[in-house]
């Protein structure tokens, strides 16, 4: 992240370009390990290590890290899954909780200078959104059956002449959800980093000791704001997933 320029041409977007660290090609598919892949792996490894360490050293009277993990897990289970989906949604707790922890750790890891924010790449957020989309459809189909689930998209008692308008709207809405999910996370994470990079570029661009404190203050404020954004975006991503799951599991409402 801190590698925001240095040359004559300062391009903040340069930071977001992908460079293969390990080249892997399977058939026509490029499976190279790029910066987002590496940082996703690191984020996953850190999340797994912290949670597993806590799980293996659980004490009856929690303190320190166990307290923090318990608060997060309890919040995800009670505040996110049970409160949004309901008691029947408890089976979805691992999926929603992992989504939150994965997005949060990727967002937070991206704040380390020199790292890469995996969630600032549309392919990563799209991958997660596609996964959520299929999970939500799968949950609905499993509960109501294929025909029953898609029939529920057309509310009963609707005049038949509205159907040609209603059905496309429903289909668009169905795909708009994962699209908005992917774009929201990607745009938020990229925009925040872009602002920081722009501020940093200003320091290099102006090369003035008088002006430097201003973008520096901007960077500090944006950095603090980015921590908040990292948390809030992870929460929004998982709460919307829980909400879509709830909609799919309660079609009768």
């Amino acid at each position, binding site marked *: 992240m801190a590698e925001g320029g240095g040359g004559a041409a300062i391009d903040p977007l340069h930071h977001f370009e992908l460079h293969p660290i390990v080249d892997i090609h399977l058939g026509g598919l490029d499976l190279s390990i790029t910066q987002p892949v590496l940082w*996703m792996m690191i984020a*996953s490894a850190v999340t797994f290590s912290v949670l597993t360490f806590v799980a293996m050293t659980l004490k009856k009277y929690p303190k320190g890290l166990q307290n923090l993990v318990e608060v997060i897990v309890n919040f995800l289970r009670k505040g996110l899954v049970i409160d949004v989906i309901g008691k029947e949604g408890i089976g979805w707790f691992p999926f929603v909780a992992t989504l939150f922890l994965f997005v949060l750790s990727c967002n937070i890891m991206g704040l380390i200078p020199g790292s890469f924010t995996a969630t600032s790449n549309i392919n990563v957020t799209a991958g997660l959104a596609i996964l959520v989309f299929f999970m939500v459809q799968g949950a609905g189909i499993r509960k109501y059956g294929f025909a029953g689930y898609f029939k529920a998209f057309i509310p009963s008692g609707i005049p038949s002449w509205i159907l040609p308008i209603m059905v496309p709207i429903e289909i668009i809405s169905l795909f708009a959800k994962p699209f908005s999910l992917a774009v929201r996370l990607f745009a938020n994470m990229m925009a925040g980093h872009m602002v920081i990079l722009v501020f940093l570029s200003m320091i290099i661009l102006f090369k003035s000791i008088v002006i430097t404190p201003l973008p520096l203050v901007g960077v500090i404020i944006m950095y603090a704001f980015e921590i908040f954004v990292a948390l809030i975006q992870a929460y929004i991503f998982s709460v919307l997933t829980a909400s879509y799951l709830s909609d799919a599991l309660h079609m009768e409402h």
Partner: protein
Amino acid sequence: MFEAEPGLIIWTWLCFGALLGLLAKFAYKPIVAILDQRANDIREELQASDKTRKDAEDLLLKYQAKLDEGRADVQKMIEEGRSVGEKLKREIVEKADAESKALVKKAQEEIEREKKKALMALQEQVAELSVQVASKMIAETLRPMDHEKLIAGALAQVKEDYAKN
């Protein structure tokens, strides 16, 4: 930056899937279990403390009832004691009164008896003295009229002495 990278999407699924699988297997179960266990413990503790409080309240009520009962018994006993004491006091006083009356009566009778006895002894003595006086008078040749006068005088003297005593 905006190009579709199927490889990256697959890596995202792989990373997410691996994390989900590992966390579900190693982390969530024990953490959720301890959270549930703690919630259960707290619920049980609360229920137990509610029960203990209820028991204590019941016990307090029972003890209060017993205390009231005991207090009433003590009051009753005091009342009984008081009435028995009163009765006993009355009896003692009555008995003492009767005894004192009997004693006084007995003393009076004794006095009367002694008085009579003394009178009789006095009369005997007077008679004896009278005989002696008479003997003396006779010895001095008294006339019958003087004899009677002397006896009457002596008797009168005795009566007077008796009255003084």
